[in-house]
């Protein structure tokens, strides 16, 4: 049985998903302000890291990275609602790419598992 990451298509799937996903985030007024003054290329690289993590692929993220990387956003009001929105856009992106509902649920669960780290609690 192939892993979730392999089933999705590995690095090529990440490349296909990242633009769709990041575009949804930037176009959503509820979360787009968190990306003001960020460098788009660096953000795309970070989003690829996040998607690799969510797809169960090889990644170097640690809970400490997640906490430190988002602490300045928590100070700006990042909360559970925003994490829900991220997971919502992630699901919609995968749906567009034709990923099976059961896989989407598995990916959402992995993304949800870093919620407390992201929100620094």
């Amino acid at each position, binding site marked *: 049985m192939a892993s979730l990451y392999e089933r999705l298509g590995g690095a090529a799937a990440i*490349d296909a998903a990242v633009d769709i996903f990041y575009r949804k985030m930037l176009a959503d007024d509820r979360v787009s302000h968190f990306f003001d003054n960020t460098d*788009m*290329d660096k953000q795309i690289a970070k989003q690829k890291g996040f998607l690799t993590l969510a797809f169960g692929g090889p990644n170097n993220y640690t809970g400490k990275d997640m906490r430190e990387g988002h602490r300045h956003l928590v100070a700006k009001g990042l909360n559970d609602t925003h994490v829900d929105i991220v997971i919502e856009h992630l699901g919609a992106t995968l749906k567009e790419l034709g990923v099976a509902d059961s896989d989407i649920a598995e990916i959402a669960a992995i993304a949800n598992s870093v919620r407390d780290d992201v929100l620094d609690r």
Partner: protein
Amino acid sequence: MSGTVRFEGQNYPLNDGETVLDTLLRNGQPIAFSCRSGLCQSCLLQAVDGELPEAAQTGLKPTYRAQGLFLACQCRPAGTLCVRTPENAGIDTKAEIVELSRLNATVLKVRLRPSQTFSCRPGQYLTLLAPGPIARSYSIANDPEMEREIELHVRLLPAGKMSHWLEHQAVPGTQVTVRGPAGSCFYTGDDNRQWPIVLAGTGTGLAPLYGILQDALSNNHRGPIQILHGALRESDLYLQSELTQLAAEHDNLTYSTCVLQSADGAPDASGDIQERVLTVLKSMANDVRLYLCGAPEMVNPLKTRAFLAGVASRNIHADPFLPSVASGN
């Protein structure tokens, strides 16, 4: 705990928050620098002993890294770092100024003849080093390997050290040093060459775009190419006749200008280059490659807007021109 930098036999302890560049400048050492953002490579130094932090070499070529070259403006060593200026590391090329002429009232064309082959892609940038030392980054507006000369477009700034030096002291025959190239804003071709290209820039952002355009044309690019030059006033434009001529010679090339103020100073909304580019993009196939160069106030928002309009992130090449930053400590 801050480290210490050892330079020309002296130890200089770093103050809290300082970089190696900050510390050496504070102690009166003549280190060249410009952007202070880790991009222009003006402040390259070479480590001969001690441990380099990873951040000090981010973005450098593997050959530079292997020689211990690092960015002084990004370097905060933990221990003692022994450094020297990299004069003999093979990163600099001597060049002779062969032409200084005006492209318009505020833009100087500078042509340099390097003493040896200067390998680069049109659209990349180099750092020009003049006595002082003064270091500034400029984009490469031609194909130096083909022409054996490097063409730069230099905006003349009232308080600009390099532009003042070029305008008042340099003459044809004056020797300078060039370092680089760097940057990833250039034409990449493959067997296909059918995709649309949009080149948009303000001011001397035209320099890299002109280089990229000539590169695409000499590679027989077959897809449609649009070049848009934005300026505040008509008099800020340059190379109009060259670009008009190129557009007449190539069916797939369109040249347009976006001028924000009419001759009498009245604002002209149709001259907004961002809106014009977004309109052009609507008529282009979705594999369009977009090159944006010039003022960060134009480049950065347009990059995001083009991405939101559907241009793939990997197909957007942006080169926001960073101002040089005065010693701020």
